[in-house]
């Protein structure tokens, strides 16, 4: 297990534009209100845990912070006034899906994502392999187990320069060791000035984290 | 005035017939659509009343 205290990230953090402030943000899918009046402040170095029943809008809020979805009511803006939809590269969203091509190998997938995020001068830098997926780098993704795919998907965090991490139930299908690595990565990201928002079920809230429970909506 | 003995009478009749069918069809569909929604709205209203 590599020593986590070295810098696990290969991408420098772009200067954070924190805080990201949400005032009375609402979103409706079709006619049904999914998010109603969410107020939230994301500070540099903060960790926010989103809780709520299924359909409470946790994933929708994460997608809103990532700039994929525009709020139907209220406003969400970074410190410099930019709306998330205008500056999507400030956030990286790891959703339920793995964003990996099953026909390609792990190395090819991660080479793509490192090239896509602007680190193309070296192929997938072996240094940033916090989840040690390097062992099965040349295995096509379709041959991997759910946990291994999840580890490979989370490795994308290692070469993202986005200051805001948005993790949608990151620890599903992960074993205890991988779960610990996730929280160590989160802590390392916060230490270097980034912010993290995690949607979670069960699992105790780590200390020093703000908790936001979304209402019964949806 | 339209000359009843004209050889083209059937074509003119067919053209205006098509016009009647299209306009009539549109009107009928529009009216049926509205009636269906109005009934659905009444059902929803009735179900809400205690």
């Amino acid at each position, binding site marked *: 297990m590599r020593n986590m205290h070295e810098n696990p990230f290969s991408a420098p953090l772009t200067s954070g534009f924190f805080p990201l402030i949400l005032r009375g943000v609402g979103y409706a899918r079709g006619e049904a209100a999914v998010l109603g009046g969410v107020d939230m402040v994301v500070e540099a170095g903060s960790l926010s845990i989103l809780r709520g029943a299924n359909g409470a809008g946790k994933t929708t809020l994460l997608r809103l912070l990532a700039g994929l979805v525009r709020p139907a009511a209220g406003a969400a803006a970074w410190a410099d006034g930019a709306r998330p939809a205008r500056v999507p590269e400030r*956030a990286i969203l790891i959703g339920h899906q793995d964003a990996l091509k099953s026909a*390609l190998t792990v190395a090819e997938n991660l*080479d793509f994502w490192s090239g896509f995020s602007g680190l193309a001068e070296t192929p997938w830098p072996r240094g940033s392999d916090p989840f040690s997926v390097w062992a099965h780098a040349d295995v096509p993704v379709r041959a991997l187990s759910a946990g291994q795919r999840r580890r490979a998907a989370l490795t994308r965090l290692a070469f993202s320069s986005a200051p805001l991490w948005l993790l949608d139930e990151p620890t599903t299908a992960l074993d205890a060791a991988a779960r610990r690595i996730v929280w160590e990565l989160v802590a390392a990201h916060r230490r270097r000035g980034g912010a993290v928002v995690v949607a979670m079920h069960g699992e105790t809230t780590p200390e020093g984290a703000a908790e936001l429970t979304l209402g019964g909506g949806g | 005035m339209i000359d009843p003995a004209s050889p083209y009478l059937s074509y003119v009749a067919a053209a205006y017939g098509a016009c009647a069918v299209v306009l009539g069809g549109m009107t009928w569909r529009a009216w049926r659509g509205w009636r269906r929604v109005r009934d659905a709205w009444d059902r929803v209203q009735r179900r809400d009343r205690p």
Partner: protein
Amino acid sequence: MNAFLSVLGRDLRLACRDGAGAWMVLGFFAVGVAVFPLGIGPEPQVLARVAPGVLWAMALLSAMLSFDALFEDDFRDGSLEPMLTGALAPETLVLAKALSHWLVTGLPLCLAAPLLGFLLHLPHAAMPVLFVSLLLGTPALSLLGTLGAALALGARRATVLLALMVLPLAAPVLIFGAGAVDLAVAGLAPGSPLLILGGMALALLAVCPVAAAAALRQAVE
């Protein structure tokens, strides 16, 4: 820029990995062209007369059939969202997708068409014009198809819907493409239709990425 190249590289590698895709489109193109003489009859003059139209129409249909998977796989396995919210502007992503489709499908069609021209007794003088007209036309088709794929993303029966939407929009490209080859068959200079075809391709190069990017944003919302 490297984001653009990495998307292009990945799509080309994916196309090579399951190479069947490109070959199937070429196979469909060849079978489609070969079926016409069976229907129309073997007389060389008749075939030569319809050759430009048949070759161009089949190239258009073959291109159309290969668009549905363009965004569908990325949409389903979740890689479309990070690509849209990465450093790469959606418009550039659409260009990368259109270029990767053209390299895998459009270019082979250009190369195969003159060969199939022999099946239809296309005069040899018209072969180069056919190639050039397809060289200008297939990028336009790739752009239109990419727009259609973005619009039909997540829709029911996306392939049929895509063809129904895109074919009327592709009619001008077909008219000038086949028209140029017709003029060449008749021994006239095909210059003006080819220039108009090039102009249309450039116009689509400007319009399609913007419209497709808007459609992708809606698809992800």
